[in-house]
């Protein structure tokens, strides 16, 4: 039997064997990696951090040309300035994070055992501001996203290391995120997985659908469609609206839990954000 037929059978087989037994977080990562390995055997695992450009050579060439002079460079500089500017009380962002907030994004989202919540980096930045008496910032774009972009930049090259501890609350949050990812919603009856697992690499109108694996490594992202830098949750809301599902608030439980699962899927892959996307 030739390789092509074997590959098709393997991919079909992956969808055929549905089990009622949850694989658990570790098994989920293994499953998703194996799935994409079977779908795109020519794509090395580490290349998934390039998103859709790992699957589309022509688009990749154009994208690499633009990335030579990245449009988000000013946002990183602005983020650094904001990050290093002390609050009115004399404190700073560095006081709120390990290692002064440098090179830590690969650990986020984290589960906070004290509050029992999943904490994303933008939420942690805003809570830091609140602790220092500064006003909270908007989550979708603007200064907060620039600060996170700078922090992401300091984590470039560091492998994603999200932890789901044995705490039942953490496991529940992870499972809720997983359910969200695989549940069909909206008038178009599509799940995150419909585009980014089952149809990854295929065309939707003029765009190619990116794989779920590696998607979180390059956020915040500068999207041509936005004309600027935006957060992962802004993208989630946009995806929901595209399938005509009512989006949730940015940093809602739903999106934080989704980010927890979504990012965990990319564990081991190096961060490369911020990055340019269409």
């Amino acid at each position, binding site marked *: 039997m030739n390789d092509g037929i074997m590959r098709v059978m393997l991919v079909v087989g992956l969808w055929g064997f549905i089990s009622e037994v949850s694989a658990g977080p570790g098994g989920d990562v293994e*499953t998703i990696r194996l799935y994409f390995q079977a779908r795109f055997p020519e794509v090395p695992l580490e290349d998934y951090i390039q998103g859709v450009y790992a699957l589309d050579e022509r688009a990749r060439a154009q994208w690499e040309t633009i990335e030579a002079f990245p449009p988000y460079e000013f946002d990183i500089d602005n983020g650094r300035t904001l990050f290093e500017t002390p609050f009115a009380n004399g404190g700073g962002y560095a006081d709120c994070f390990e290692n002064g907030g440098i090179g830590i994004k690969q650990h986020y989202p984290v589960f906070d055992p004290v509050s029992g919540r999943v904490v994303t980096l933008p939420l942690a930045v805003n809570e830091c501001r609140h602790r220092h008496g500064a006003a909270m910032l908007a989550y979708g774009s603007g200064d907060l996203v620039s600060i996170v972009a700078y922090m992401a930049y300091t984590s470039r090259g560091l492998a994603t290391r999200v932890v789901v501890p044995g705490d039942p609350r953490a496991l529940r949050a992870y499972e809720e995120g997983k359910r969200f990812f695989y549940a*069909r919603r909206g*008038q178009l009856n599509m799940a995150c997985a419909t585009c980014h697992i089952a149809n990854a690499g295929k065309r939707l109108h003029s765009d190619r659908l990116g794989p779920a694996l590696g998607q979180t490594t390059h956020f915040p992202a500068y999207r041509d469609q936005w004309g600027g830098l935006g957060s992962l949750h802004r993208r989630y809301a946009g995806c929901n609206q595209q399938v005509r599902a009512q989006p949730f608030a940015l940093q809602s439980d739903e999106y934080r839990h989704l980010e927890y699962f979504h990012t965990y899927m990319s564990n081991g892959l190096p961060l490369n954000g911020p990055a340019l996307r269409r």
Partner: protein
Amino acid sequence: MLIGAVYAALFCAECASGGEQRLDGDGCALPELMASAQALQARAQASGFAWTTIQALLDEASEAITQGQQALACRHLTEAKIHAELALEQAEYARIHWRLLVPHIDEPWEEQKR
């Protein structure tokens, strides 16, 4: 949405037959229809599976009422109810069947690589 609109136009039970002729609202029971559509929308939202189309239709119905177009409002509300009911069905389907989209493998990653 088109199917829903056609359905609403043809089978709008709460508008009764000849909805266009009932511009005065008799038989359409607009307040009750609005209340039931809003209640279904609240349930869809609580389920986490509300569609963007539902609120849009409710808003269009309110606008139609403001402009005195009761029959049009009736159609929008009926369609909103259908969308909300479908969203609730979708929520129930997702609750039971969400795993159907999960890729599944029986062999560990390292074994598959070999």
